[in-house]
């Protein structure tokens, strides 16, 4: 420690740290996907030989954006009341809802996709209520419902955080001036929360645009960008693969930055007030209706589809078939050998890529938060976003071209590097936001008291951001373990757990109970990891 602290006060060492982490950023995060696409730019023309594939490609891209827009808008409309309810409710029970809202976020999306499929279209799910008729068959509507489910917690999480920070005094002032509560929220609170609304919309938007594994499970014959890419990869059409990937990458970056530039400037157009109508909307009865609607949507459209996968397991528990499957699983019989192999692979990749992100990402997070690169800082802050803006399967496609072009790289490491790229942004963004929230004065005071930079980091910055380090680590780790799109694009012989599960569902050869149990194991292990991390963070105080 002492040696590190001594080193940290040397300017040259600090420069070296920044140079190393910037070099890492360019060599492993930013440039590989760009070079990957450029390498295959020649095969782009192939698609014109197949007119029907070309039309399919365009439809797939357009449907990706349509889905993302509809889903994010609906999520915002439904998520905001729930966030409001969570923050403003005086009931103690609300903390349960608050915790539950994170559950779908922690379930790997493939598991969620399968669960939603069972819930909406499975014989034991919703169709059961309608005499077995398929109410929502796999296809566009089911994709919408699924995306709604997994984007919902993102919106709620962001908005709850923002509402907690929001100074209620503005609302009080508006109300004492004669505004009905609804008017106050509409004209004061929401416009002030606009940056957060835009941010959560964008998060939900890029999540919907990017999701692959779950979407494939519920897509049926419907194709959006990622599904199309997966289909082309399976059929071995490289031209269409490159075509859709490159267009998706470019358009999603473009749309993302357009929204983030234009949306904050848009004005809430309506300043007119309808006192009588808004008074009715503010009446206790309307509020109760709003709260119950928010709860209903949450429980029926988010929680139930997320956890429905556990139902076959519960059935199996009662009819006694669970024991048999469980013993097969634990003895690695049949397809279970593959399963445990892929679980080990997923967790090893998750562990290495998380660790890499922490080591190589922390200096960049600090640099962005503390504006160490002067005028280049906001530019860096913007490009760091690219990996999450871009659909992960498209990113995976270009990454796989790049890493395979280097020839000798083992597949395992190609997978590790692409998972690192995919999760990099999550770590940087949450860490730099956390560091930014610490007043620089604290660090300045510590340095006038004689502390060296590394000491300040260890004794002041890190303890104050401990919770964020924890949540950033969780985010990166669970994203890595749950990642399907990029893994699918890169993998040739090795299969991570989500990829294997998609194969199981699509292949249809594995018994239903085995599938449910496999997904149950994936959910269980992610919860256990979280729990371990939480204990580690608490203990390491």
């Amino acid at each position: 420690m002492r040696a590190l602290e001594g080193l940290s006060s040397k300017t040259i060492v600090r420069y070296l740290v920044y140079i190393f982490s910037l070099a890492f950023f360019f060599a492993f995060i930013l440039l590989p996907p760009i070079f990957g696409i450029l390498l295959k730019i020649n095969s782009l023309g192939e698609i014109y030989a197949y007119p029907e594939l070309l039309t399919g490609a365009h439809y797939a891209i357009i449907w990706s954006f349509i889905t993302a827009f509809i889903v994010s808008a609906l999520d915002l409309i439904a998520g905001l009341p729930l966030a409001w309810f969570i923050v403003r409710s005086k009931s103690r029970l609300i903390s349960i809802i608050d915790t539950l809202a994170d559950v779908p976020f922690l379930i790997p999306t493939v598991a969620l996709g399968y669960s939603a499929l069972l819930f909406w279209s499975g014989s034991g799910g919703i169709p059961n209520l309608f005499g077995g008729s398929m109410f929502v068959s796999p296809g566009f509507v089911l994709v919408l419902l699924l995306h709604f489910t997994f984007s919902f917690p993102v919106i709620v999480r962001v908005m709850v955080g923002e509402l907690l920070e929001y100074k209620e005094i503005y609302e009080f002032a508006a109300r004492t001036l004669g505004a009905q509560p609804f008017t106050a929220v509409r004209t004061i609170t929401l416009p002030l929360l606009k940056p957060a609304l835009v941010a959560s919309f964008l998060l939900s938007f890029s999540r919907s645009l990017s999701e692959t594994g779950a979407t494939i499970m519920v897509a049926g014959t419907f194709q959006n960008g990622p599904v199309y890419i997966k289909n082309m990869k399976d059929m071995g059409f490289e031209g269409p693969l490159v075509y859709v990937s490159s267009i998706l990458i470019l358009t999603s970056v473009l749309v993302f930055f357009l929204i983030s530039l234009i949306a904050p400037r848009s004005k809430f157009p309506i300043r007119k007030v309808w006192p009588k109508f808004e008074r009715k909307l503010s009446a206790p009865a309307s509020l109760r209706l709003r709260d119950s609607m928010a709860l209903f949507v949450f429980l029926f459209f988010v929680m139930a589809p997320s956890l429905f996968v556990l139902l076959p397991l519960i059935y199996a528990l009662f009819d006694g078939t669970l024991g048999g499957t469980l013993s097969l699983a634990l003895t690695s019989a049949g397809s279970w050998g593959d399963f445990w192999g892929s679980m080990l692979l997923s967790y090893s990749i998750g562990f290495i890529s998380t660790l890499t992100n922490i080591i190589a990402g922390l200096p960049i997070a600090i640099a962005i938060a503390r504006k160490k690169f002067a005028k280049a800082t906001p530019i860096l802050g913007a490009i760091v976003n690219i990996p999450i803006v871009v659909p992960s399967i498209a990113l995976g496609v270009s990454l796989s071209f790049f890493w395979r072009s280097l020839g000798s790289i083992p597949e395992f490491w190609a997978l590790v590097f692409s998972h690192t790229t995919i999760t990099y942004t999550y770590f940087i963004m949450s860490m730099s936001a956390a560091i930014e929230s610490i007043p620089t004065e604290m660090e300045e005071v510590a340095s006038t008291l004689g502390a060296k930079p590394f000491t300040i980091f260890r004794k002041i910055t890190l303890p104050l951001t401990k919770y964020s380090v924890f949540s950033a680590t969780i985010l990166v780790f669970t994203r890595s373990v749950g990642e399907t799109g990029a893994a699918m694009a890169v993998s040739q012989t090795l299969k991570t757990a989500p990829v294997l599960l998609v194969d199981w569902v699509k292949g249809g050869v594995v018994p239903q109970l085995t599938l449910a149990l496999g997904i149950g194991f994936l959910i269980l292990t992610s919860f256990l990891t979280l729990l371990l991390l939480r204990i580690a963070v608490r203990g390491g105080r």
Partner: protein
Amino acid sequence: MTTVSLVDVTKKFDGITAINHINLEIHDGEYVCILGPTGSGKTTLLRLIAGVIKPDEGEICIDGKLVNDVPPQERGTAYVPQQYALFPHLRVIENVSFGPLAKGLNRSEATQISMQMLEMTRLAWRTNSFPGELSGGMQQRVALARGLASGAKLLLLDEPLGALDARLRVELRYRLRELARENNLTTIHVTHDQEEATIVADRIVVLRNGQIHQEGTPTYIYNQPKSIFVANFVGGANFLEGFISERKLGSSWVELRGRFRIFIKDNSHSVGERVVLAIREELSKISKNGEDEVNILRGTIKATSFLGDFMSYEVLLENGDTVNCKVPTTINSEKFLIGEEAFVQLKPQDIRVYPYPPAGLYKELEAL
């Protein structure tokens, strides 16, 4: 015509009593200052009247009407919170016309009223600015204009001058008073600044630990402070510890430490009882020669400070007590140097006597 009355009002937060059974009547057109140290419950009291929080017990009436369950938007108050809470995304004119629009007036009516208010607060020239572009004093005036434009006759001000620099604070407090009088407003003004309170208020209500400690006109509070706390908080004073050594008809003798004896015009305490004497610093006379009068104490000058209008001398008495004397800065007033001998006279009619506080004198003086 706007009156406010609080009957036995109590408010608790997480089991901590912020307002403890308060009874208060505020008359039409009255300007009342709620004065108290941090944590005394001033802001809570104001928020209860504005209706943004509800009392746990008791009744709040505005114009004789029970308003406990009336939401803030129907109470007709102009609440100006600390730091003003101007809406940062709206221009000055939009901030001011917010109230009239929210009450359903059309745009031209709302603008007309708002312009009137902005003219009254001399801000008509900044209508298109955003709050962030204005100085603290201007922001405060926008907040006032916004409150008044909503048509309220009850003005609730929470530390309205607290965020301003000293000069502006002095200037604006007269303006506040004028504005309230011109518009026939009933005003409740919360502050921890006793000087501000004594200057603007018709009546001061001293709040301590969520209870009304003393109320009355500024001169009454200043001249008849009910307790050591009020004497110290409003105007400040010298405090001397002692006990009653002799009790007579209408007067007593108090013995300080070092056997100093002080004659007081009060005989409400029994012989042997521990007491604290309080005397205003400007009433503590200082002179070079100890004339042969009552209550003359000898000491030496320990420190001097120039306060502009006043010269303040810190005198270390022979018995070890310290007394501050404030002398108007005039050409012919006597000047003292540090270390010089001086005599302090405490006139019996200026001395107030309080029982010794159970928690000790220092604790009582620190409770600000």
